[in-house]
């Protein structure tokens, strides 16, 4: 398998990362090297093997449906790039 430059642009779009033409070229080379490495595992017979998604067999714990954390909206919004009246501001997307 070999990624084309269009593949790299598509992946970058999926990842929400803007890439320049130079970065596409560099990424193409490095990603192809990495996927060559990754290809090694595809030859291994894993039929009947249960995927191991997690290091421990953990279950999400249930808790009572009650609020336990205090409301710290101002503190959490203090680190935002832009807020107004308790709302996060982002560029206008609807004219």
């Amino acid at each position, binding site marked *: 398998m070999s990624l084309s430059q269009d593949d*790299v642009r598509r*992946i*970058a*779009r*999926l*990842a*929400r*990362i*803007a*890439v320049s033409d130079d970065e596409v070229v560099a*990424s193409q080379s*490095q*990603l192809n*090297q*990495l996927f060559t*490495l*990754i*290809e*090694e*595992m*595809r030859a*291994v017979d*894993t039929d009947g*093997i*249960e*995927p*191991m*998604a*997690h*290091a*421990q067999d*953990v279950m*999400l*714990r249930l*808790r009572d449906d009650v609020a336990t954390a205090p409301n*710290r909206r101002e*503190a*959490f*919004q*203090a*680190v*935002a*790039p*832009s807020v107004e009246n308790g709302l*996060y501001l*982002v*560029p206008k*997307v609807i004219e």
Partner: protein
Amino acid sequence: MKTLKQQIDALAAGQTTSVALVTECLAQIAAHNGELNALVTVDADKALAAAAAADAARAAGDTRPMLGVPLIHKDIFCHEGWKTSCGSKMLDNFIAPYSSQVAENCDAAGFVVLGRANMDEFAMGSANENSYYGAVKNPWDTKAVPGGSSGGSAAAVAAGFAAVATGTDTGGSIRQPAAFCGITGIKPTYGIVSRFGMVAFASSLDQGGPMAKTAEDCALMLNVMAGFDERDSTSLERAKEDYTRDLAAPLAGLKIGLPREYFAEGLDAEVAAAITAAVEQYKLLGATIVDISLPNTKLAIPSYYVIAPAEASSNLSRFDGVRYGHRTAKTGSLDDMYEQTRAEGFGAEVKRRIMTGAYVLSHGYYDAYYIKAQKIRRLIANDFQAAFAQCDVIMGPVTPTTAWNIGEKNADPIAVYLEDIYTLGVNLAGLPGMSVPVGFASNGHPIGLQIIGNYFSEAKMLGVAHQYQQVTDWHCKSPAL
């Protein structure tokens, strides 16, 4: 620099004060951090004020053993009021509004925080060359890397900035820098140390742990760091343990497994010789050696470099310039803002891993890569369990080579990935692993022995390491700065 244990004893005996200990550390930091770049934040005023408060509390009858002991946190643990950058431009302006469980535990124990350790951006790297704040230098050889991603923590402990530091290990990021810097570090069983408030890289692999000069100090520190936390859904509900309980346990009858695959092609001869000498020392202490096999060792690399980027691409999607962190100044659509923010905020290695993750999780490739990697992960975990049916602990090298020179492998990130071959499997299986100093190469670079234990065997492993450190002095050596 006193060890943590020596600091605890000296404080309890009234032979020193927290202000004296903190002042000594700050002097060492002032003298050498400019060159090493091990710490990205130091707050001397805050530390001295906390030290004075600790001394006053001790004088008033507070007997917490760690009260007033200096500590350095890896810059990945959120700590309220401290800048928590995770080595990234993306979080260069982020002052944590809450504390991680690890930071809370350390605060509750009475530690005095000196500052924050430099690290590879979002813990992605094996050399600490991927930090937005520049490369960390190895105190043993400032031309060399300290290892990553907890390289700042490792360099700081080796340089005597503090006796203990926190670290995290996703694919070897405590053990490898500990080995490269000649200190001791342990990555506990997954789920022992809460990940709440620890900036996430790969959630099923990340685990916090202590880094110090000695195994005894790591045990004392793990007692503070570990414990169930209901805020972390992967935190294991287990009774509180005393990780110092087996430090004095004799090693007679200990069965050490040596995996053939860890002594194969690619292992540096000087590293091999140091590991072999350490194993011989263990024989003198009464251990017996068992030849074992971990046949899927090589597959840890492809499996890890699918699973970790996949989880990273998901975890790092939160960095979109909306709620916190960097936001681009370029105007455009919302999608443009996301893409430009992330292009500006992330470094090359992080982008590469996010893109890899996005690809392996994308439609049409999920089964072929992600599910396949998870099946390989199962095979690797099964290998370890088969091995532990024959032995108590597994030993081998932490890394195939000692620390390389800064910039030497910049052009070939895949070569750096291959350096993690002996550490990745432990994370994939969720096992505990540690690094213990066992010698130096002819270039003066430290060499680490890896000890791998079965699940929840931290106390035993720390005892195994401590007994070695009772009859050797590799852990006592300090770099000439």
